[in-house]
């Protein structure tokens, strides 16, 4: 087992299993525990769940390896990928992947069965933790604490970029200075942020709401029924609505009084006022769709 850990490791602490060695390592008198992930990570297999599950499994394996770097101390982690072990998959009659099996030691004081325990891979919030609990409950005397592997290469890129950025500031500063010092850009940025937040963007972000949804008749539903739900499209529409309303208010407050042509001014004021009225009425209309009991409305779209 040690040799295997040394000779054919996929990555530190994880044994790469194949058709050749699989039967030997799981064969009956075992004085060690073995966790095997039967997976199909190759991209052409299209196993989304396999790739999703792999990081958590590697984290667990790494954590064990971190504390027991030399010889595994009676618990080993292996991966049998479909491309290395088609025969084994057939022999075990596995039709789906990924599977996580835990082989308990069959020797020793509290010996376990020959057959493995199957960990059911389902969407729980803390995957690594639940895998660890599963292993701990089936392999006696094992305790795993999570050690996250720091990937320094990932850290290095931003640091380098930041340093490069700092270095180049001296040269490009004259060019970006007007951008940094432009009030309009900061104002635009602030307004966009505020409009995003006040139209429920964070809700979409946290709840992963769909952009639109289908309704019962097979059509498309743009506006979610109900007061405390929303769709992505809906929030964008509301943000645009708010933006136009605010734009109208700003124009009335600052722009139109500065128009020095009488007719043009009157026209502009009329246009903006009508726009505000119509859009506000539309806003109230949409709000009434969400909240059936809401009693107030404004003319063009008052039902």
């Amino acid at each position, binding site marked *: 087992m040690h040799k295997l850990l040394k000779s054919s490791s996929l990555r530190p602490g994880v044994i790469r299993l194949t058709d050749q060695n699989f039967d030997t390592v799981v064969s009956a008198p075992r004085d060690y525990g073995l966790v095997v992930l039967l997976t199909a990570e190759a991209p052409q297999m299209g196993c989304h769940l396999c790739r999703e599950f792999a990081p958590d499994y590697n984290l667990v394996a790494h954590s064990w390896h971190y504390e027991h770097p030399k010889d595994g101390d009676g618990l080993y982690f292996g991966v049998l990928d479909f491309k290395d072990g088609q025969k084994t998959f057939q022999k075990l009659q596995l039709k789906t992947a990924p599977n996580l099996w835990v082989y308990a030691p069959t020797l020793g004081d509290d010996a376990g069965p020959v057959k493995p325990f199957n960990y059911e891979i389902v969407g729980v*919030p*803390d995957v690594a933790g*639940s895998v660890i*609990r599963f292993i701990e409950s089936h392999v006696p005397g094992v305790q795993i604490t999570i050690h996250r592997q720091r990937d320094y290469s990932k850290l290095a890129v931003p640091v380098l970029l930041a340093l490069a950025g700092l270095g180049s500031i001296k040269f490009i500063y004259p060019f970006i200075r007007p951008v940094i010092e432009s*009030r*309009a850009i*900061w*104002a*635009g940025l*602030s307004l966009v*942020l*505020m*409009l995003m*937040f*006040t*139209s*429920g963007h*964070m*809700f979409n*972000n*946290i*709840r992963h709401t769909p952009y639109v949804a289908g309704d019962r008749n097979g059509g498309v539903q743009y506006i979610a029924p109900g*007061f*405390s739900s*929303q769709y992505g499209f*809906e*929030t964008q529409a*509301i943000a645009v609505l*708010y*933006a136009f309303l*605010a*734009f109208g*208010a*700003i*124009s*009335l*407050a*600052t722009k*139109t*009084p*500065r*128009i*020095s*042509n*009488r007719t*043009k*001014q*009157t026209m502009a*004021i*009329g246009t903006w*006022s009508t726009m*505000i009225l119509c859009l*506000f009425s539309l*806003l109230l209309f949409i*709000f009434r769709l*969400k*909240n059936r*009991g809401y*009693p*107030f409305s404004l003319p063009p779209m008052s039902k």
Partner: protein
Amino acid sequence: MIVLPLSIPPSAGQTLPLLRTVILLTIAGAAISSRLFSVARFESIIHEFDPWFNFRATKYLVSHDFYSFLDWFDDRTWYPLGRVTGGTLYPGLMVTSALIYHSLKALTLPVDIRNVCVMLAPVFSGLTAYVTYLFTTELKSDSAGLLAAAFIGIAPGYISRSVAGSYDNEAIAIFLLMLTFYLWIKALKLGSSFWGALTALFYFYMVAAWGGYVFITNIIPLHALVLIVMGRYSNRLYVAYSSWYSLGTLASMQIPFVGFLPIRSSEHMGALGVFGLLQLVGFSQYVRARLPSRQFKVLVTVATVGLLALGAFAVVGLTFAGVIAPWTGRFYSLWDTGYAKIHIPIIASVSEHQPTAWPSFFFDTHMLIWLFPAGVYLLFQQLRDEHVFVIIYAILGSYFAGVMVRLMLTLTPVVCICGAVALSTIFDQYTNLATPESTREDSQDVKDTKEEPSSSLLNINALTRTPVIGIFSPWSRVVVMGSFLVYLYMFVQHCTWVTSNAYSSPSVVLASQLPDGSTHIIDDFREAYYWLRKNTPEDAKIMSWWDYGYQIGGMADRTTLVDNNTWNNTHIATVGKAMSSREEVSYPILRKHDVDYILVIFGGLIGYSGDDMNKFLWMVRIAEGIWPDEVQERNFFTPRGEYRVDEQATPTMRNSMMYKMSYYRFPDLFGRQEARDRVRNQRIPSPVTDSSAAPIQLNTVQEAFTSENWIVRIYKVKDLDIFGRDHAAAMAFEEGKKKGGRTIRAPPSGGHAKGKARVLRV
């Protein structure tokens, strides 16, 4: 009342002081009276959950002295652990009410402490309106201030947390928040350490009153930082910030609950860092001014940057070394929005910690939500130091409000202020009666109008440089003023409607409409709590889900296992486990915790949706966090992943204590009809309609009380059997005897009116 301030020509600039006072008093009156719906409809009663604890603590403070209040160890909650209450609460609210109570008493006005507590929030909202007026006046003008005061007085986003009876920290905290901000702006404008010290004083009050003080602790340093980066460092900034930070931090450390946090936790490190930065910048400015040679200036710059880097490294190093605590989970979950769901289910389970959908924003601020960006844009035009502050506040506030529903509260003031700025600018322009001379075909004007598209809204500076011409046509004035007055009228209507319909329910007492339109009061909670008070021994221990802990402590005056303080996750998980396990598993837990009674909330009969069966999954989840092997959420869902309570419910669900206690004897109410749960709209298995269903049997507990509409059900935990049998065997034996026809079954105590259930229409 609200339209009043609009009738003053704002162009006058200075409103008459008398008129201003009258308007402000009227606004305060409107703010207070619009918060009295619940008192008028129900009675002068403390609302909801947390206020009951605050009320209980206030009563303790009034009857004891201040120091024994701070040393208060409460052995009647979190049984058997107890809670160091004095050291784990923000005493500001209680001290405020106690002061008011004692000063009224000194004035020979004996007022019940309950009425002081009920009326505290409305009175402070009147003061908030005044402070908002002061704040906005600093930003723009008197008229904008009056508008802002009127807005904040009736905006539902603020009313939601400050109706009469909602005796919570937020009741005074928003007033303190706005006051601290006002004083900070004032200190910054004047560069005065006196105003800085005042800022610190009210910052201290805020720290004493609400955990949300961290918002101030971070927004003021952020403001200072942005000003420095914008190259607006000044001695005024130095004086204001240094005096606020040093005094405020020292003062805030006097609160037992806060203690050494200001120098040991990451939330406060920003303020400390900016304080250090200001010293460095101040020093380098001082040296720069006195050093002639260029080399020295370079030296100073290098030294400043080096020291800064050193300081940053020191903070990071101390954090890793564990001297500085990393961000607390609650605060951290604001940034990493997925964090709470995975790591702190208790926080994620609270409904007011959910993200905000857009209708809530509109519901809480109506038209102000779209005037808000317009106001911020107008602030960008002038961009004085205080405008920068409001802009930062606006962006941060809208982010936080988007992440958590309850933080709508901190957003509402800035929405009102910016809305008032926008609206008053419009009113300024269209009520200015000076009509410009008609200069139509002037060649100068043609040139101007040509320029107009290029000097569009994007070019803020150029826009302000163009002179204001004025409004030509009186019809334009009428159209704009008329439409906005209509919108304002609608705003008032909306606020009144929202306050009356959504935010004025005490939630302790519920109201429903009978078919003939009359209001029916559902008073089950108080009925049950008074039953507990009158019929159980004084040291009885009541187990319930944590939501009801404060109410049981406040109204029934009985010892609880867990309450809304939620400081001990494991203890809450224990209760969750006892509720979600089988009777045989729960009973030892109940015995170990000396539980005498279990209280469950059940809304299935009248359709009260906030009941325990709907919260049940959170109990399961929180218990699963501690005992993943014994409680599993998956077992409570049907194979198709549905949450069901009818005949398809999983065995785990049907055997759980909570399910049994909720539906025990429920089908009996319906006679020969099918038993329907009106909240989940599912049919409860009943032996009458479904021959395979067995009636729910409870062995280890017995029904002690069920309220009129079945909302509250109380069960007594049985003692150990006197013959040493297990309870199931004892019950079976009793049943057997009954079949022999000898014993008469005792009727359940607590008179619930059978078959007379009313339907709650909500």
